């Protein structure tokens, strides 16, 4: 029994590793497809062929592509992403603190959003087709349609204007946890509002789907209360789709974080990436994309494993 679970997890991990490898190839290869030459582009049209050649050597561009890829990948595995094209600093230094900040913000938002979405989803399923359900339906459909920066600025307008919360999420490394939570409350709330809607709708749909099955009818016929039916009987079977949609939305947080960080001037990875895109600092963008893609793949992988584990029929396969 236990062995087959480990085998399954190992299989998924292997598949995830392959995906990551292909993604790294894609991220590296996309730059290769660039028409023209990075060195020429960086130095401008007026550069002499000699300076361009010297610069190419410095960047390692004179080596063949596969050799450069292996060097790059070897560095990445050891946590060395190379140097920034724009200012020559090691990318690892640029990223180090910011990655922690971004993770902190994403976790903070998730810690609010996931319980909230589950409770609202269960309530909506319990009182389906009531006014409560309809109001939540319209509200969530609307908030899915709002651009992140709209939500962010509305919150700034109402909550930061009056001085309740700071509109700029500046955090210093030596800030206490409470202070950090307070200062990043608005960005976290923005992300929560954006993500909750989808999770809640899926929770509701998954539970309502199950309510039509015979064993639920049986429970109802023997006089069980609706709340107990949903929590005790429907929820365990709805876990797999719910876990999936939670993971999908946490992955969505990763992208949402980019815009929100820019609005709140939060020193995270997303803001670094946006700055680097406008500077066309390709090496930094490559590193940031790889990290975001890694988080995305890992989340999907975790969801896959967890939703399999939540299904006894798959765990205890005969």
């Amino acid at each position, binding site marked *: 029994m236990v062995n087959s679970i480990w085998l399954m997890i190992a299989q998924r991990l292997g598949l995830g590793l392959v*995906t990551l490898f*292909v*993604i790294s190839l*894609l*991220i590296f290869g*996309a*730059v290769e*497809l*660039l028409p023209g030459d990075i060195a020429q582009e960086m130095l401008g049209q007026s550069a002499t062929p000699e300076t361009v050649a010297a610069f190419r050597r410095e960047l390692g561009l004179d080596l063949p592509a596969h050799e450069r890829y292996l060097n790059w990948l070897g560095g990445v595995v050891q946590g060395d992403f190379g140097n920034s094209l724009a200012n020559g600093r090691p990318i690892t230094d640029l990223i180090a603190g910011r990655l922690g900040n971004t993770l902190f913000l994403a976790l903070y938002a998730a810690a609010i959003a996931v319980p909230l979405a589950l409770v609202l989803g269960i309530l909506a399923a319990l009182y389906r*087709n009531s006014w409560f359900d309809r109001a939540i339906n*319209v509200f969530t*459909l*609307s908030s*899915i*349609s*709002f*651009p*992140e*920066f*709209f939500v962010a*600025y*509305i919150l*700034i*307008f*109402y*909550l*930061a*204007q*009056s001085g*309740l919360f700071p*509109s700029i999420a500046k955090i210093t490394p030596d800030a206490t946890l409470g202070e950090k939570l307070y200062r990043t409350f608005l960005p976290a709330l923005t992300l929560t509002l954006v993500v909750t809607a989808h999770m809640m709708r899926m929770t509701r749909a998954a539970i309502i789907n199950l309510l039509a099955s015979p064993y639920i009818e049986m429970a109802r016929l023997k006089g069980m209360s609706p709340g107990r039916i949903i929590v005790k009987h429907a929820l365990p079977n709805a876990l797999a789709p719910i876990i999936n949609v939670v993971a999908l939305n946490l*992955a*969505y947080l*990763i*992208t949402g974080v*980019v*815009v929100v960080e*820019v*609005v709140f001037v939060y020193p995270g990875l997303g803001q670094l*990436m*946006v700055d*680097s*895109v*406008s500077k*066309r*600092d*390709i090496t930094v*963008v*490559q590193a*940031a*994309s790889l990290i*975001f*893609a890694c988080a*995305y*793949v890992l989340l999907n992988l975790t969801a896959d494993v967890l939703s399999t584990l939540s299904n006894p029929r798959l765990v205890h396969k005969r």
Partner: protein
Amino acid sequence: MDALIGFLTALLWIAAVIVAAAGVAWVFKTVAIALAPAGVAKVLRTAPLTANFGIIVIIVYVTVAILAPLIAPYGEREVVGGEYLPWSTTHLLGTDNLGRDMLTRLIYGARNTVGIAFVTTGLAFALGSILGLLAATVGGWLDQLLSRIVDILMAIPSLIFALLLLTIVGTSVVNMILVIALIDSTRVYRLARAVAMNIVVMDYVEAARLRGEGLWRLIVREILPNASAPLVAEFGLRFCFVFLMISALSFLGLGIQPPTADWGSMVRDNATLITFGDITPLLPAGAIALLTVGVNFVVDWMLHRASGLKE
């Protein structure tokens, strides 16, 4: 205390807007049923108020986008006064950070932002659905090849991938359209292929094959008509995603470039006003939100109808 009052007035405003929207939608529904031919009226009668509201929003946006030069009081790029002028009779919504009329920019923004989003969605759809239908019809190695490529492209979050590609090709409107169309076509491909897979195995397609119909004719005449309903609903959803993505990129300063009027960059350029308690920068963001809400309402109703769900 102030915050509480502010919050309560906001709630009151939201309630008022919802009531007004429902009223407008109800009037529209009644008028439309009375005026439309019998067939259309019958369909409209089943539409919920939200869907009617969505239809009105779409009609208004399209009208404004087409008639922009006639409606707008000033020229799109015309500097008409000081910077950040407040609302007044000459400049209904004040002026922006360079002294251009805000209302004018907002109206032209409908044309530029919505137009570009529409073109991008169209491109993504053409590419994605043709490849998807082709893969399902031909099958074999072509299907395998395309599907694996799409799998890989979809393994990277779309905004991150867009940022990566824009760094490589450089930021410009044409590049942005192509990049987003490419990324979104993968999602369309998945749906088109899945839908077509169920149709390809039907007997009538087999009969058409035996009759000797060519590949192109098979796809366009036999499979496409039966796959169109889910694809149309998907078009609405995709449009929302593309529209939000373009707005996000423009907001980040990487999408539609100035001096073209565009809602995303308008928010970015005038965002400082918000900290002074001026809601003007929220208007373009609200315009984006309103259109996506409208389209989502209509799509929701169409999906509901297509699935035959009667609650």
